[in-house]
């Protein structure tokens, strides 16, 4: 019995349903909206020298810093931003210059902790439970194909769907961004790897990469984050056997993940939650991590452990449990 036809089946079922088209539409609509909003903002601004603007911004942020009224978390961000803009000023690079490729690159950061996990959940939460809801699981599991192979084919289809979604998201962002800001600029140098050493910027960590390489890395990390969320949603789909319940659980987790670092930044143990680690393309490119001390390798390890554990439990449950739906 060959494995490829099974994966073909699962991909076919994913693509034939409305949810994949909905995901595509969400990607297009969101990207279009953001590009539109940004062009509006750009049009209203008078044409001024970016150097003057950047200098003003640094001065403004220094005032905030000195005022002493900022909470600790924001203070950290302000200091970082001052250092980052200053660094660009020193090297005569516009920190806010935007182009189609840059817009696509920004999409990876902006989507890795909410949008892409959300779409991954949209596919994964339903991939096993829908078979139970439709009753088709009884046919699927009475064919001369072992349960492990059936589940593996579903997991493979999920990986394909998530990969496609991340790639399409990047492509759509590039197309829309290019329409507004120009399609060229993949080779432009990007400064990345900003890190605070105490109060000042640690210049040793800053690197200059061509934009395409940087974007590829950022998308890779966003893909990995979405994949981990997909694996965990896959588990909830197997265990709960209800799409609504699985989606609800995963959404609650995602929301908790965006709120927790803000309301309880001092709770150190949350760095081991998968949701806290999702914005990793963000701190890969230099933003401060949600919890001090989190690094990209750390997050990759944490996410890998979550993904492997969730998948293992999903197999354990699926292979053993009686089908009584």
């Amino acid at each position: 019995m060959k494995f490829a036809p099974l994966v073909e089946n699962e991909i076919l079922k994913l693509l034939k349903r409305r949810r994949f088209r909905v995901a595509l539409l969400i990607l297009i609509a969101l990207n279009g909206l953001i590009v539109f909003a940004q062009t509006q903002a750009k049009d209203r601004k008078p044409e001024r020298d970016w150097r003057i603007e950047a200098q003003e911004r640094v001065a403004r942020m220094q005032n905030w810093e000195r005022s002493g009224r900022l909470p600790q978390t924001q203070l950290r961000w302000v200091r970082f931003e001052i250092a980052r803009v200053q660094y660009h000023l020193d090297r005569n690079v516009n920190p806010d210059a935007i182009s189609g490729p840059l817009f696509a690159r920004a999409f990876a950061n902006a989507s890795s902790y909410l949008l892409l996990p959300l779409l991954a959940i949209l596919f994964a939460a339903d991939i096993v439970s829908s078979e139970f809801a439709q009753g088709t699981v009884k046919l699927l599991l009475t064919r001369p194909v072992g349960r492990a192979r059936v589940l593996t084919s579903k997991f493979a289809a999920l990986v394909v769907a998530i990969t496609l979604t991340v790639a399409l998201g990047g492509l759509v962002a590039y197309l829309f961004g290019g329409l507004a800001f120009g399609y060229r600029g993949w080779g432009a140098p990007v400064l990345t790897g900003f890190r605070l050493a105490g109060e000042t910027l640690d210049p040793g960590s800053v690197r200059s990469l061509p934009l395409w390489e940087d974007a590829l890395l950022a998308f890779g990390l966003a893909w990995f984050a979405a994949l981990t969320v997909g694996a965990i949603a896959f588990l909830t789909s197997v265990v709960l056997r209800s799409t609504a319940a699985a989606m609800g659980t995963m959404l609650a987790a995602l929301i908790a993940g965006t709120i927790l670092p803000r309301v309880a930044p001092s709770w150190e143990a949350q760095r081991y939650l998968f949701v806290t680690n999702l914005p990793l393309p963000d701190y890969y490119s230099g933003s401060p991590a949600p919890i001090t001390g989190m690094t990209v390798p750390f997050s990759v390890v944490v996410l890998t452990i979550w993904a492997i554990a969730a998948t293992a439990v999903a197999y354990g449950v699926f292979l053993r449990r009686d089908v009584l739906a």
Partner: protein
Amino acid sequence: MERNVVLAAENLTKRFGKREVVSDVSFEIVSGEVFGFLGPNGAGKTTTIRMLVGLARPDHGRVRIAGFDVSHDFAKAMARVGCIVESTDLYPYLTGRENLLHFARMLPDGAHRRIPELAKLVALEARLDDRVSTYSLGMRQRLGLAQALLGAPDLLILDEPANGLDPAGIREIRQLIRHLADDRGIAVFVSSHLLSEVEQMCDRVAIIHRGKTLAMGPVRELLAKRGADRLVFRVEPAEKAAQVLGSFARDGGARVDDPGTVSSEVPRESVPDALAALAAAGVRVFGVEKQSSTLEELFLEVTGGETV
């Protein structure tokens, strides 16, 4: 046609918590045989079927299909089976053909080549490229059957195949099942709570109630055990007729069923005498007909009167 055992259930037992849903159920089905599995809803039929096809694991006992143990040689055993469990659920957002192709991909190479022939067999050729969500219940049922036959199985397991069908649809399915058993030598396991349908198409039946098999055997044999057929007399006055007929009845009883109707177990050879006696007693006889003993009665008897 060589008759070999295709399905063997040996001492199947399943517990949900402390409740034993299926207790020690055993049976064998040979090729070309239609086996009816009868019982009221909740008798343990569906749980038994789930164990037959490996969806549920028996707590005790085992199932062998074409000699392969379902729990150890799952893939080899299931390669010989086509089934419909509980309802013919297929993917509503795919067309009939896409559904069949989907399940053909889960079978050894070449199964998709049977699709045209099977579509013809279940009379779905014209609608094969429409989405299943637009199908009627009867069409879904027939598509389910085509799906079950894709792998050219030796054994068909059909759970309530006539559920939700109109009388014409039920007759079609019945004829199809007989055709598959008689002409292709497929062993068919049919569960049902509709006695009439099982009676008409099965070679053998088992009656299951509260998880236990209460009776099993060829339909004719089971019915014969119940003695002679009852006769229904359309007479007037009924009370008087009942008195007269009582002396001719095998068990000495005659019952007034309705005003003007008496039923009694009068042996065939005594019928002319009984009629003469009725005439002599001044009873007017309008008609005598045979009330054939049905599985229905047998069923009521073995289950202690619980309706199905």
